[in-house]
């Protein structure tokens, strides 16, 4: 069953007098439990595509069905709801609330889902345990290392049990060793049956995925299956 079905979408921005074709004509399908990397040089439209996939933005033309529901025609509130329930974001810069502890950061999406406080706290704690931060529940971001911060962000993305995890350069701000740990965590998450979409410009990161979409000038240049997939050592093995 495919979660994402995109047909001939285009996105045109108006910058001053000029029209910028960020996406020209993109069609793609992503199935449940796929692990897809989106690659491309800057200006290729990969950020735009990611925003589109994350329901942060709607296409100018074309069809975007998310679990069989058309996103193109959604109102702001419906988009907010789908982002809340179905999509887990992981950002390059973590985007944690600086003055809140790990538990509060993780429970944030559950607040917007209208889940009562006690259940929220419980689920947030469990998500933190799942990413290996059971002993850092009440640390604030500035008391955590970069890798730990990204783990908090991943816990936040997972806590709503979304249909897809959307990671935008998740290792971009991390050193290679920590980056590798994070990639191992993603692998683990994928093995548990989650669907992951990874945006990156680094080949070796992209090779963790099962499939790579290469974008250029707003078009999908290549859609290839990774033959020699890089399977990182599991977290336990790293430690």
């Amino acid at each position, binding site marked *: 069953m495919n979660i994402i079905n995109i047909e001939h979408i285009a996105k045109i921005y108006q910058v001053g007098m000029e029209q910028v074709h960020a996406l020209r004509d993109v069609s793609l399908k992503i199935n449940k439990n796929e692990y897809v990397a989106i690659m491309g040089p800057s200006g290729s439209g990969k950020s735009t595509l990611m*925003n589109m996939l994350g329901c*942060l933005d709607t296409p100018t033309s074309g069809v975007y069905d998310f679990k069989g529901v058309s996103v193109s025609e959604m109102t702001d509130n419906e988009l*907010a*709801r789908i982002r*809340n329930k179905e999509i887990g974001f992981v950002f390059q810069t973590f985007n944690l*609330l600086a003055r809140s502890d790990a538990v509060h950061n993780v429970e944030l999406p559950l*607040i*917007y889902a209208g889940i009562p406080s006690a259940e929220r706290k419980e689920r947030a704690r469990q998500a933190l345990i799942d990413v290996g931060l059971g002993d850092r529940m009440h640390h604030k971001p500035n008391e955590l290392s970069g890798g730990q911060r990204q783990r908090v962000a991943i816990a936040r993305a997972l806590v709503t049990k979304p249909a897809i995890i959307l990671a935008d350069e998740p290792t971009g701000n991390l050193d290679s060793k920590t980056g590798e740990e994070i990639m191992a965590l993603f692998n683990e998450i994928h093995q548990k049956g989650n669907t992951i979409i990874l945006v990156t410009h680094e080949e070796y990161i992209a090779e963790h995925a099962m499939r790579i979409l290469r974008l250029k000038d707003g078009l999908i240049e290549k859609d290839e299956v990774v033959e020699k997939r890089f399977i990182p050592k599991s977290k336990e093995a790293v430690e």
Partner: protein
Amino acid sequence: MSSIFLELREGLAIAWRAIKTNKIRATLTMLGIFIGVTAVVLMSTAIKGIDNSLQQGVSSLGSDVLYIDKWAWFSNEEWWRMRNRRNIEMEDYIKFKDLAKLPLAVAPVSNSVQTIKYGDRKVETVFLSGSNADYVKTTNFDFAAGRFYSEIESDGSRNVAVIGSEISSKLFPRGDALDKTIKIGPVNYKVVGVLAEQGSTLLGAFNPDNQVFVPLGTVFKNFASRHMRSITINVRAASPEMLEATKDEAEGIMRKVRGLAHNEPNDFSINQQKGLTSFLDSITIVIKIAGLFITGLSLFVGAVGIMNIMFVSVKERTREIGLRKAIGAKRRTILAQFLLESSVICLIGGLIGLIAAILLSLMLNQFFPTSVQYDVVILAIVISLLTGIISGLAPAYTAAKLDPVDALRYE
């Protein structure tokens, strides 16, 4: 329903968190609202106090009493016309009293200003009212001690005096005025009565508390040359409802007594409390408008401060807003978050301001009449909430309509 409640509670929690993390900034912002609310509350308690005090004072004049006088209290007529009127004399009073059927009581009054002395103590510029024993029936006087002078005393022009409570406390701090001999001008008078406190300080010399009452005959005898025996006739109606009828009757009788032809204008005026009330109202309304305008201005400055801070806060938290939107916050959630934040800041500032204003007005009450009312408490809460919502609206709206993609990219 429950989801709105939940959202509100979460919004409050988020707002509270934001305030707590920016304590200094929130405190400074609160200061603006604090000052504004303190000023507004203080001003409105002061206005209330002035109002109450004037009303009390005016009502001590009696709402059912007419004052027939050569002068009108409030009139558009040229003053020299009134000056050229004939004096109202004792003969007028005697004829009037014979003819008037409706009044409860009629009394002639002659006022002058005198210095009152007892031993080394003295009170200057005291209103001295000369009248007869009927005078007390035209008033609502209560006595702290003694009585009003009797008919025999007034007919015999005895040197007896009834003194107001202020005069009593100034001349006799120990409260033993009764039967003492005081000096009015150069003349000795015996105190036969002391009034209980009647009116308010704002009426000044017109307040019975600051007056001395003596038989009219003694005024004519001792102080006559200075005011040419012109009197006022105080007429008390049987009831406030009868006031108009009594006034009509009084006008007719006075015209007859004064021998006016039907085409001549009145050469006397019939004054009443109502005129004074409306005159005082016209003064207090100016005080009210000016006062509320000035204090409102300080509240406005506070509100601008809040708006400014909220704009800064929105700008500063652009990425946070982007993140919140990305993970599912709706526009109205963000709107509510910032509105709640500014409202909570204002409400806290307002409540502290309210407490400060109440304490201050209790202190001020010793010099100036103030009156804290329950409606002021509600007023303060409503004002601070409204300020919070109004000044938070534009920044909150800016935050709510941010595009999550741009907001997340904001540096």
